[in-house]
């Protein structure tokens, strides 16, 4: 392709899709601005700062790290949402509350193990977090965290399987919209069941004072990263690779992809479709629950609506990645997470979600099928 062709292609793109051109200009401005800020070069025009400014590399690095952390959690939770969408053909609005269920199951388990191994005297009711926060610093016991992660997954899996059995399975052939509406009902029921038991109060779950930290040097400062964040990143990345291995290498994973691809043919081929659906709930539920446990570990607070609040970001990530694609859900989640945090360079943190959704909308303008749309990996 020669220069003239490139030029005319570019011109056609601008004429046919002006939004794309606008987006390009805006991105270019933001990129230049970011570079100038990082180089500490403010550019003023008539006394007004138009571009550039000051931003410590370490601050920016911390934004990126925060974004990655949020993104990994959103991506991890999104895998299940995307899988149930492609295999069961409906958008499960209760998915966020599976995240919450997992977080509560996991933290109760972590407290019980923590109190037991650390020999702390606390009434059992408080360990179970009923109405009041527990004061045990579960993080002092790594065993408590490991058990918590496993029980978080297990709690969400049992919830997901139970709800599938009593709600979704009887409606299996009713189509996507009735199932979607039912899932909103399930979401509300689940959330307020949690409120009924644990109350609406938000509680701190880990003692923040004593967390070991590492500092990543950046030249003009350091990016602090604590052990909670490290645990989250390692756990999320390991699980994502695990999902990749499962889908590409195991018989079950291939059957899941086959079913996402073509349900009727899967049935005719002799793939036991109900078993594959159960496996889908198990994997999706486990990842949602673990994501819930991890985000609470990182943030330090647990309340009944963490999953619901996360659900919007999860949906944004899944749609951005191309709904139905597992890899899209992971990538989309990370993009959304990073966008919401890096946006803090320019806007106050109250608007972080606005930035995340703007990125989603802009990407979809350019690529309506999503990043991985049409690839259909499951």
């Amino acid at each position, binding site marked *: 392709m020669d220069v003239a062709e490139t030029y005319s292609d570019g011109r056609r793109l601008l004429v046919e899709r002006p939004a794309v051109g606008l987006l390009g200009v805006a991105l270019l401005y933001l990129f230049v601005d970011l570079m100038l800020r990082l180089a500490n070069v403010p550019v003023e025009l008539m006394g007004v700062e138009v571009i550039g400014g000051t931003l410590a590399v370490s601050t920016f690095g911390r934004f990126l790290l925060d974004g990655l952390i949020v993104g990994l959690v959103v991506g991890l939770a999104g895998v299940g949402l995307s899988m149930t969408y492609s295999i069961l053909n409906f958008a499960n609005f209760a998915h966020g509350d599976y995240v919450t269920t997992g977080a509560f199951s996991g933290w109760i388990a972590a407290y019980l193990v923590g109190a037991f191994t650390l020999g702390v005297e606390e009434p059992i009711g408080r360990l179970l977090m009923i109405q009041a926060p527990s004061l045990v610093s579960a993080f002092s016991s790594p065993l408590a965290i490991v058990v918590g992660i496993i029980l978080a997954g297990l709690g969400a899996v049992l919830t997901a399987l139970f709800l599938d059995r009593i709600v979704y399975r009887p409606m299996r052939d009713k189509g996507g919209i009735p199932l979607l509406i039912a899932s909103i009902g399930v979401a509300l029921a689940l959330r307020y069941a949690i409120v009924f038991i644990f109350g609406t109060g938000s509680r701190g779950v880990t003692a923040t004072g004593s967390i070991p930290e590492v500092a990543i040097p950046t030249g003009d400062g350091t990016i602090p990263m604590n052990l909670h964040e490290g645990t989250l990143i390692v756990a999320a990345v390991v699980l994502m690779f695990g999902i990749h291995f499962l889908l590409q290498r195991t*018989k079950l994973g*291939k*059957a899941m*992809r*086959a079913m*996402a*691809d*073509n349900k*009727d*043919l*899967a*049935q*005719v*081929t*002799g*793939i*036991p479709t109900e078993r594959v659906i159960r496996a889908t709930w198990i994997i999706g539920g486990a990842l949602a629950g673990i994501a819930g446990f991890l985000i609470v570990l990182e943030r330090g607070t647990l309340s009944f609506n963490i999953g619901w609040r996360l659900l919007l970001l999860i949906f944004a990530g899944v749609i951005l990645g191309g709904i139905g694609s597992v890899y899209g859900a992971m990538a989309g989640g990370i993009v959304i997470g990073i966008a919401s945090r890096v946006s803090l360079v320019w806007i106050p943190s109250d608007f972080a979600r606005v930035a995340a959704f703007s990125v989603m909308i802009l990407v979809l303008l350019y690529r309506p099928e999503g990043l991985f749309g049409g*690839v*259909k*990996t499951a």
Partner: protein
Amino acid sequence: MSSGTGDQRDVTDADVNATNFTTSEDSLLQVGDLDAGYGDLKILEEVDMNVEDGEYVTIVGPNGAGKSTVMKSIFGLTNVMGGTVEFDGSDITGRMPEDIIHLGLGYVPQSDNIFSSLSVLENLEMGAYILDEVPQERLDEVFERFPILEERKGQKAGTMSGGQQQMLAMGRALMLDPDLLMLDEPSAGLAPDLVEDMFDRIDRINEAGTAVLMVEQNAKEALRRCDRGYVLVQGQNRFMDSGDALLNDQQVRQEFLGG
């Protein structure tokens, strides 16, 4: 194969009553008085049909006659309202597809018959899903029969040509070495120069001992090659005879084969 091996029955009596068809007790596939459809809608009425071991049988007829419905009903994918389907001595009426596959019945649907986002090899592996392990010797046989599939085994199935996809669909069904292979319009959507090749391949599958039950739009070619054919009209059997006899029957020619 096709030419004149079937006994030439007299079909001057055009409206053969379904109940007059000769059926042997130990047919591989035995469909009796089958009523079936979708929901409350009845498509098939009292369809009788049988396929013997190693036989090559085709079902032809106008659009909407219920040809594909016959196959789906045999495979348990429709609402069966009456009648029986027996395969290899067992009653499979209304059974789940995953049970039927175990008995040695393979089915290649008309469209969407491959997993397009899976690789060619993964498609074949799915064909053997009900087995604990992918049978290597079957895989080798399928590759021998369709060398292009071995060449492209890592390729995403959806990116192959129509003819290659059809071969893959057949290969997938052959992974379990079925006694009877049901093919729903294997020539649909193929370029004209590939149709002949596809029929040749089906001939060879049948020559290797697998019974074939095939639905075809390309009625003349199908009847020329098969042992026996059924003409299905409005959900009912109208004619049954050897392929050659049907091809030469004046009424069948005029009404269904375009003169």
